[in-house]
């Protein structure tokens, strides 16, 4: 019986374990049968969470939190996991270690732990199978479970729920019959499970968990630790089509934000000697917003002679050429008109580092209010302009020759390619190419043939012709076994995988018989570790003579 992963959203997944669609909640009456079907025997001696297991506890499908080790099974049960309820650090550290140790295509069962409140986080951390035991044991204690936490049924006057139980019984009836409380708890858990699945399908479970973890400090602890984890960082996809919400200042710690910042600093290089600082806009990409259109219109073709850099929160700084890249085009934040100190510090320090790395002769800014404060805080030499008219005049006298629209467009595509594949790759990709289409949907063409296109999600996808231009790009190349792939390349077929590859990355694949391009579904580490599952969706390939 295989565990097939059908859909991944960072570390959460929708899969199939035999006939069971995961993430799944097992009913307590069906757990024994489930274990039987998987050939799992329940040992008589089982140590709790804080006691290391004895050597006699050696069922291969069970792993003890105090002795996490590699296992070759499609399903793995984490013993005593219910102990982690209410303990954010234990939960996070155990899950991280488990995920690091196991193959990605191992379904993880956390017994007696799931509640409507915590199941989103558990799935987010990469667990797949759950049960209703905690719903049952809570019910026996008179605990009425909701997504927002635990209520004592004896304190309830009315139900904050309209499940079949809550709409047909009174609070008194529930208080005197724990089986009714259990039924409600179970309903609430199943509801929440469906909810979570919706967010996985949207690719937005992070956004959901960022909200859901606020019910209890311990859940928030786990989320904060997640944001500091290298393991989980690598599983956050490089691109997505859905929106990116940053509704709390904590979101600044997200992998996407940190990754974007480091790539702007490391993979972007100046296209002009003049840097122009601009404020962000609500509409994305910025250049399509009314405020930016006004600037663009006023500066006209002069704009092509400067490097525009947009100051924003929580991304800090966004080069104009990278304004479509995830999450620059995707983010939305609550705009109050006031930045908090953390945001200002983050943006100003990034701005400073950006300027230190890139040699600009002059730095202009057309910003006001908090944006201006960010500029000042960065302690770099900036010439501020209060009107677009003054700015235009200054640019007119400063800029000698303006790049053509064609080369300007090429430079943008090149910058995005650098962002995706590393500094210097963009030039190879766009050399002599022509950019066609309506921004931000663009095609990169040469001799009437497509090299790449800027997709709806604001990032590039390659054709095999474009891929050939990037040949030798080790970090994004996958060496596959000696076969000619059709629709997708499964992980067992991967021999080597470039170390930079993340889920969502465009990759080149190759062996002695074939060369092609496709989209990575997992990061390189997982491609090599997984014994099953799609590693790359093939877009195009050429068979070698």
């Amino acid at each position, binding site marked *: 019986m295989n565990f097939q992963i059908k859909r991944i959203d960072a570390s959460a997944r929708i899969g199939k374990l035999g006939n069971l669609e995961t993430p799944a909640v097992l009913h307590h009456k069906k*757990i*024994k049968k489930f274990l039987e079907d998987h050939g799992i025997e*329940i040992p*008589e001696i*089982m140590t*709790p969470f804080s006691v290391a297991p004895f050597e006699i506890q050696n069922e291969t499908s069970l792993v003890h939190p105090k002795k996490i080790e590699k296992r070759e099974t499609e399903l793995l049960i984490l013993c*005593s996991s219910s*102990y982690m309820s209410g303990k954010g650090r234990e939960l996070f550290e155990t899950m991280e270690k488990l995920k690091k140790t196991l193959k990605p295509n191992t379904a993880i069962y956390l017994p*007696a732990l799931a509640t409507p409140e915590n199941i989103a986080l558990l799935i987010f951390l990469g667990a797949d199978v759950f049960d209703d035991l905690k719903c049952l044991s809570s019910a*026996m204690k008179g605990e009425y479970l909701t997504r927002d936490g635990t209520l004592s049924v004896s304190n309830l006057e009315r139900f904050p729920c309209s499940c079949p139980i809550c709409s047909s019984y009174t609070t008194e009836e529930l208080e005197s019959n724990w089986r009714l409380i259990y039924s409600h708890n179970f309903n609430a858990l199943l509801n929440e499970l469906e909810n979570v699945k919706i967010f996985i399908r949207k690719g937005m479970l992070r956004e959901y968990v960022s909200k859901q973890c606020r019910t209890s400090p311990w859940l928030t602890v786990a989320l904060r630790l997640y944001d500091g984890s290298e393991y989980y960082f690598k599983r956050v996809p490089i691109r997505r089509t859905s929106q990116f919400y940053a509704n709390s200042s904590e979101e600044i710690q997200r992998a996407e934000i940190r990754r974007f910042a480091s790539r702007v600093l490391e993979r972007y290089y100046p296209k002009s000697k003049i840097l122009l600082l601009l404020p962000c806009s609500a509409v994305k990409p910025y250049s399509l917003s009314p405020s930016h259109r006004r600037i663009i219109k006023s500066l006209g073709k002069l704009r092509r002679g400067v490097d525009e850099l947009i100051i924003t929160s929580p991304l800090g700084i966004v080069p104009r050429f990278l304004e479509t890249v995830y999450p620059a085009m995707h983010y939305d934040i609550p705009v109050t008109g006031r930045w908090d100190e953390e945001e200002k510090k983050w943006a100003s320090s990034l701005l400073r580092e950006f300027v230190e790395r890139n040699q600009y002769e002059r730095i202009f800014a057309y910003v006001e209010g908090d944006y201006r404060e960010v500029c000042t805080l960065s302690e770099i030499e900036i010439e501020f302009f209060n009107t677009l008219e003054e700015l235009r005049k200054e640019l007119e006298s400063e800029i000698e020759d303006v790049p053509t629209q064609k080369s300007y467009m090429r430079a943008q595509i090149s910058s995005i390619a650098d962002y995706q594949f590393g500094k210097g790759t963009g030039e190879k990709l766009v050399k002599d190419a022509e950019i066609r289409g309506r921004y931000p949907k663009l095609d990169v063409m040469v001799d009437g043939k497509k090299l790449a296109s800027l997709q709806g999600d604001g990032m590039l996808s390659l054709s095999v012709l474009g891929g050939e231009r990037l040949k030798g790009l080790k970090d994004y190349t996958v060496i596959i076994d000696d076969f000619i792939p059709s629709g997708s390349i499964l992980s067992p077929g991967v021999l080597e995988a470039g170390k930079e590859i993340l889920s969502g990355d465009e990759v080149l694949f190759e062996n002695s018989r074939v060369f092609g391009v496709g989209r990575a579904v997992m990061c390189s580490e997982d491609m090599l570790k997984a014994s099953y599952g799609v590693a790359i969706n093939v877009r195009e390939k050429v068979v070698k003579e």
Partner: protein
Amino acid sequence: MKKANEPAGIWRSADRFDGETLPTITAIMRTRGCRWNSCRMCGYFEEHVESTEEDLLKQFKVIERNFPKEEFALKIFTSGSFFDPREIPENVRREILRICSSYKNLRRLIVESRPEFVKEEILEEALSLIPSLEVAIGLETSDDFIRNFCINKGFSFDDFLEASKIIKNSGAYLRVYLLLKPPFLSENTAIKDVLRSIKAISWASTISINPVSVHRGTEVEKLFRRREYRPPWLWSVVEVLRRCEKKANIISDPTGGGTKRGAHNCGKCDNDILREIRKFSLTQDESVFQKECECKEKWKEVLELEDLTFGTPLLF
């Protein structure tokens, strides 16, 4: 302050011997403590003192003063081994047995010992003074894995069998203690374990079912504090008493029964159930178990489902 010349406790109760009920004096002597002192659930070592021979004899004098006029049974417990000369030096043992033999109304003397201290010559000598001697051994379980890993008892079932053979051949009585719910077993497995153990004991005059209670300073207490161990339900004690093979006198007197640290139910029915357990221990009559309570349903679920948490109590 623990006094070396006074026993740790003396109390009076009643017990059943060979079908009749006798008043019993239970006396806990303070010795240097159990030589093994490594069982996960045992906190009796806390009671130990560096008692001299003189101290021990003084302790026994205090005990002697509590002897009744009528026929009675005497339990002398050291929370260790009565036959371990490091706890009870030979001279003291002889003196105690000699004094006891002078009481014609003493119908039974019960002492405890680990199997390694049960020796033919010691028993022979003791029986020559007290023919009604009963030796109690804390076998805890017949399962060597459980005894080793969950209890850390430090002897095997074979060791027990050997000691029990010596006891049988010497003509003494044998009392066997079984532990209900050592750590790392689910409620259901704990019941199964005791029932299996009773089946495995081929000869004993009394089998005493001892549900674990949480002693201070023990490993079990650490688990208990982390909510990783729950003492057994009183329903489980009842279950064992009802379902077990009645090959011997089957008794139970749950230490700390009805409290969080001892075998307990919901709190409402505990006292009634404890009364029934005591009554059964004296009468061996299963029909004493009449009490019903709504918490029994929960206990049944625990029996059915606790294994499925893979190591943590389902309901604390």
